């Protein structure tokens, strides 16, 4: 479903701030794969998702989504294949618009936007049903402004928006990092439910090693812009947090340094 072939990206090339964020990254995903991504600060996790999403173009290498070469496709065109949830709850929704308007925008992802009415009565019914999955009571607040929702509610809504039209690939960039533990657990639960329901191919970055082990069928560890450890199936299920730490030291030759990394 996703083929990333030897992509590299250097920011601020030729200046003192030069940073090689991705270096020969290779990653191939089967349809239905749910991959969790861990790694230290500056390992290139978010950079990888931004490369897939097309926030900027990579310097070299190629990216194929379901066989379609998107390497040179602008961000808004790639969006047709992608669902995205960001770390900052403010990023994924339009605060000055209503819940139903946000959903209507999302349900037209990848379609031409014409002079037809922006939201139909039939759609509203469908949104009401789908909001029930989140179990946040949002189904009764369709016309509430998104700016009035809490971070957790906005993140759950963004998740629904990302999957309203089934994406070929769902990109979750530490989407629970900004939430309190209880809300984070709820959003993760919704994530599992939504991903499982449509068997979505998913990449989820997390700073919580336990979450990385519990969720998904495959786990990759990144360091200095490429993947240093890749595990799936039964082997992944048996992993423990201390296994991961040892693997990291073996593969990178240094200690796992990430202030935000949660070991529990």
């Amino acid at each position, binding site marked *: 479903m996703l083929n990333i072939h030897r992509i590299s990206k250097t920011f601020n090339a030729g200046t003192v701030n030069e940073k090689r964020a991705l270096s020969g990254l290779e990653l191939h995903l089967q349809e239905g794969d749910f991959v969790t991504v861990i790694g230290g600060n500056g390992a290139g996790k978010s950079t990888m998702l931004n490369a897939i999403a097309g926030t900027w173009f990579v310097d070299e290498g190629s990216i194929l989504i379901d066989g379609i070469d998107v390497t040179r496709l602008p961000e*808004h065109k790639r*969006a047709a294949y992608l669902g995205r949830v960001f770390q900052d*709850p403010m990023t994924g929704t*339009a605060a000055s618009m209503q819940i139903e308007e946000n959903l209507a925008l999302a349900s037209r992802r990848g379609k031409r*936007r*014409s002079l037809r009415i922006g939201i139909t009565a039939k759609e509203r019914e469908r949104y009401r049903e789908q909001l029930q999955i989140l179990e946040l009571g949002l189904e009764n607040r369709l016309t509430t402004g998104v700016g009035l929702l*809490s971070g*957790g509610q906005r993140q759950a809504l963004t998740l629904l*928006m990302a999957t309203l039209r089934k994406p070929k690939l769902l990109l979750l960039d530490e989407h629970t990092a900004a939430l309190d533990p209880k809300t984070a657990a709820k959003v993760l639960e919704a994530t599992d439910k939504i991903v499982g329901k449509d068997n979505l191919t998913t990449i989820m970055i997390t700073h919580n090693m336990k979450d990385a082990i519990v969720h998904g069928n495959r786990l990759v560890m990144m360091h200095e812009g490429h993947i240093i450890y890749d595990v799936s199936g039964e082997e992944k299920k048996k992993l423990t947090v201390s296994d991961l730490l040892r693997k990291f030291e073996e593969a990178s030759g240094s200690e796992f340094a990430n202030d935000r990394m949660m070991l529990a």
Partner: protein
Amino acid sequence: MNIMALINALPGACAQGLIWGIMAIGVFITYRILDLADLTVDGTMCTGGAVCIMMMLSGHNVWVSLLAAFLAGMLAGLVTGLLHTAFGIPAILAGILSQLGLYSINLRIMDNKANQAVNVDKYDLLVSLRYIKGVPFYKNTLLIAVVIIAVLIALLYWFFGTELGCSIRATGSNPNMSRAQGINTDLTKIIGLMLSNGIVAFASGLYAQYQGFADINAGRGAIVIGLAAVIIGQVVFGRIHGNFAFKLVSVALGGVIYYLVLQVVLWLGLNANDLKLVSATVVAIFLAIPYLKGKHFSKPVKKGGVGNA
């Protein structure tokens, strides 16, 4: 001071306010919906009048002339939009560049003259300061301006409810989210700028007819008057929770209030040459109020009282 002089001047002030209200609706689209400060309007507020008057002088129908003014404004918006999106120039600077360039273009349109008059007796004008009193009601400029505003608001209400209109609103609200949802934010910004400048040029066409001439300086400071109308509308009617159409109505009424206040200030004896300074001061104060309110008068959050994230 003669109170009758003031009362006699009020209908004219209302008419001017309504026409500037149309212009302010154009400013509202960029400033409030797209979250861009577009200074192109200082140029297009002259271009529209120039195009409209020159078209009428060469024998075209008033509606055709106004349509041409609208299209000319859209073209100016397109230039600003391309400078901003395709060439990465900050929106404010892109607007200033278009505005400066338009000065020369406006002079060309007006046959290299600083103004061009259109005689109300010879031409069939839609609005005029002569059509305020003593004309059949259906020719009254106040009525015509109100009808035009009503139609314009209805059209915009429909447009910003369509898929395309919604994507323009989303672009102004959150460009990152918009791109993630497949919206070409460069395109939506260009469409918004074109629509805005088209409306401003249309208002300019009406204003030139109202005054009886197109003037090269007609657009000077137009953005400030437009912003004043937007902000006054928001301050005066902001507490009423209305829909999008109501917001546009309050912008238009903001224009009327601005001109009524202006009339009173003039009647009180202010030198007309000082008006621009007064306008700039008033707008600066109204822009500063929300910021200062938030900074100095917000209630402190109780310790430990942080809600869930």
